[in-house]
């Protein structure tokens, strides 16, 4: 991200910048991209649980995104933000740059990047997800179910 800001500053001085592959990027484009990264910074902090996915919670458009939705559902997490990258190509590419992560879905807990579907699944299986949710003040439904069965 720093190099993006540096080239933004450079192009503001010279009016243009050379991006990778020798393409000339206009100052406006680089500023918009930098602004978008800032917006993402706010989006991931606005809600405790944030998921960038393909499709929507009601209609996931990819098996991995669906897996994330189902895991959260199992833990009784209803109150979370989802952003559909299929609706917005700038979001789709921007979030990969922001997280420095190549794939979707992407899960953020309390503003921090947690990982994709693989990581969430492993956290769910090894009990880490229940712990992380507890730190956010969210009591997992699975924890309640376990306590009830005792």
């Amino acid at each position: 991200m720093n190099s993006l800001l540096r080239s933004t500053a450079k192009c503001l001085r010279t009016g243009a910048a050379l991006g990778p592959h020798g393409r000339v990027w206009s100052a406006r484009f680089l500023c918009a991209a930098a602004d978008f990264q800032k917006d993402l910074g706010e989006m991931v902090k606005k809600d405790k649980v944030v998921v960038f996915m393909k499709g929507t919670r009601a209609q996931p458009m990819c098996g991995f995104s669906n897996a994330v939705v189902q895991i959260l559902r199992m833990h009784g997490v209803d109150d979370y933000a989802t952003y559909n990258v299929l609706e917005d190509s700038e979001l789709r590419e921007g979030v990969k740059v922001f997280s420095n992560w190549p794939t979707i879905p992407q899960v953020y807990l309390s503003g921090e990047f947690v990982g994709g579907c693989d990581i969430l699944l492993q956290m769910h299986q090894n009990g880490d997800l229940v712990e992380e949710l507890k730190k956010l003040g969210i009591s997992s439904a699975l924890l309640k179910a376990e306590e009830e069965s005792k």
Partner: protein
Amino acid sequence: MAITADHIRDKLIKELAAVLVDVEDTSSNRCAASYKVLVVSTQFEGKPLLQRHRMVNTCLAEELKEIHAFEQKTLTPEQWEKQKSQ
């Protein structure tokens, strides 16, 4: 650059000193290049999941630009042995 399972496997072995790499081409399940990898390496020891996955992502940065879907499992040799016996 032709991305093949072998190419991915070789790169992971070389750059992560992996003792075991299994690459499954899952493209037939989807519409575009997809892979599922298992990497066992001592370099993962003491590192949290996210950091391990980032190591793999960094190793395959060029390839991932063209891969559509990617699943990964990262284990230390000890975790791998434990999993095998289960």
